[in-house]
């Protein structure tokens, strides 16, 4: 029987001729990732179990992105623990304030993930790298510790859902609308334990930034991973970034899918997720006029240059509405610099936005934009759970950069003109 793209990558990394859904396998890892929240727990577990060396300091990435620049004394202690571990073990890919970016934008940008890789990260949005045709999945701190100690980890081979994309995106519709639409259709556990295998003639028209956004939110449908085929755009993206050899895998024609979901890109419209689940989707037009007090544009989902170009295009020459705080956060230093070079930074500042150094901050109610009781934000981030961005009685509406920027200008949920 044929294998899906995910299954092929896992089989090769497990040293097996074939695997099937449900198999428990042990697979070799190409990269193990942690951040300032999850690494300290992994360090504790690693040391408590008596391990004293990492399997390969070149294949570990530690990215201090969540609460940095440190928001308080406790988070400074977390960073210190991660920093000292990285130094002690000679971890090559260690990123601290000044060089750091949001991990899932940073790792692809630095060429640390290649097509065909197996990557685990102690952060749920590690599934982002599926955009590059890699198998990547979020795990916990103990999995990170096990990966650092042994270079391997256990996996249950996932069954698959095939998502067939047709047509191409129109107007202000973006990758964010594609993934919110999909989650709205299949639910927050619609892909539980499964891989989301994106395919179809519509893939070619999607930019890499759109693909990163889509793969990033596979977890919001419960997915183990989301994965895209490797095409000319992927190869162009990794060319000049990835300096090692890699293998491109394709799904077998007779691969088995539990379910096939078709999405007609032509017919998609700007979509938002209302509180308190990403699956609670509506067309943005249906909820236009809903007042907001905050707009956040950034994150591992939508903090890439393509996202910020769209937001700037909407905001150029306009001003954020009175009573709205708009926070724009480029995901990496390279993107930040690009925003400066292209004049996007000026557009945001002149529009009355806070323009910040890279951080995950507001997405998880960490810092740089926590909300109090009764406030509502529109945000290009990935989760709108109860209390996600601050007070338990605050609300988050998930949206694309275009819709978030237009809403910041209007003072309520709005569509770009």
């Amino acid at each position, binding site marked *: 029987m044929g294998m899906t793209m995910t299954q092929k990558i896992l089989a090769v990394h497990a040293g097996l001729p074939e695997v099937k859904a449900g198999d428990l396998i042990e697979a070799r890892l190409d990269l193990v990732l942690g951040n300032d929240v999850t690494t300290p*727990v992994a360090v*504790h577990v690693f040391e408590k*179990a008596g391990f004293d060396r990492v399997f390969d300091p070149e294949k570990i990435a530690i990215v201090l992105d969540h609460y940095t620049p440190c*928001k308080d004394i406790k988070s400074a202690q977390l960073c210190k623990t991660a920093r000292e571990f990285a130094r002690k073990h000679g971890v090559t890919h260690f990123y601290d304030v000044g060089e750091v970016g949001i991990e899932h934008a940073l790792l692809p940008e630095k060429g640390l993930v290649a097509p065909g890789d197996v990557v685990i990260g102690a952060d*749920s949005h590690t599934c982002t790298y599926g955009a590059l045709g890699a198998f990547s999945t979020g795990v*916990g701190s103990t999995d990170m510790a096990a990966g650092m100690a042994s270079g391997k980890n256990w996996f249950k081979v996932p069954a698959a859902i095939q998502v067939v994309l047709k047509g191409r995106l129109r107007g202000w519709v973006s990758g964010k609308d594609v993934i919110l639409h999909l989650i709205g259709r299949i639910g927050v556990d619609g892909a539980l334990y499964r891989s989301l295998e994106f395919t179809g003639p519509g893939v070619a028209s999607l930019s890499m930034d759109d693909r990163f956004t889509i793969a990033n939110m596979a977890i919001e449908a419960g997915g183990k991973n989301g994965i895209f085929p490797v095409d000319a755009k992927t190869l162009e993206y990794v060319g000049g970034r990835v300096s090692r050899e890699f293998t491109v895998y394709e799904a077998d024609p007779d691969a088995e899918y539990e379910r096939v979901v078709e999405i007609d890109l032509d017919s998609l419209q700007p979509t938002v997720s209302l509180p308190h689940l990403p699956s609670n989707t509506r067309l943005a037009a249906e909820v236009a006029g809903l007042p907001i007090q905050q707009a956040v544009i950034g994150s591992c989902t939508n903090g890439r240059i393509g996202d910020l170009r769209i937001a700037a295009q909407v905001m150029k020459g306009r001003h954020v509405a009175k009573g709205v705080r708009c926070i724009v956060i480029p995901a990496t230093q390279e993107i930040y610099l690009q925003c400066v070079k292209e004049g996007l930074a000026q557009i945001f500042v002149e529009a009355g936005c806070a323009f910040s150094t890279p951080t995950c901050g507001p997405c998880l*109610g960490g810092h740089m934009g926590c909300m109090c009781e009764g406030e509502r934000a529109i945000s290009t981030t990935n989760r709108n759970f*109860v209390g*996600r961005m601050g007070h338990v009685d605050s609300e988050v509406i998930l949206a694309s950069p275009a819709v978030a920027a237009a809403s910041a200008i209007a003072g309520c949920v709005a569509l770009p003109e």
Partner: protein
Amino acid sequence: MVTGTVFKYGDNVDTDVIIPARYLNSPSAAELAKHCMEDIDAAFVTKVQAGDIMVAGWNFGCGSSREHAPMAIQASGIRCVIAASFARIFYRNSINIGFPILECPEAAAEIAAGDRVSVDFDTGLITDETTGKSYQATAFPAFIRRIIDQGGLLPYLKAEQEAAKHA
């Protein structure tokens, strides 16, 4: 085998409500346990007793990969979570820290808050002593049982490494 009083929750209990991110600046399980579930059940931490059991609906533990979530539940005194289904990272994390969790949709639907429930981890048998009904959860595969028996993934790995050294 454990017996405890049930705390019951609904579907899609996410890791942001199990342990809100505002407390993730501490990696200490005891510190995290003080805030466990507080955004959906502020009284939980004052009522939970060592040995109690948590029962919930579909997709328990969805959201972030924070291992702090099962750590906080475990350190609060809860000995086992029974749910209709678990989000996959939460499922891995629980096994990896040696915290037993059982998938059983029937038990999750029928067991009520405050019931006395006993769980036999060897057989997967769940008994609601208040109603007298029993439920059979799927037992863990042998590989996962070995991880739980060793007290988690890292002790398991270490034991394997030591065994290989002496082989």
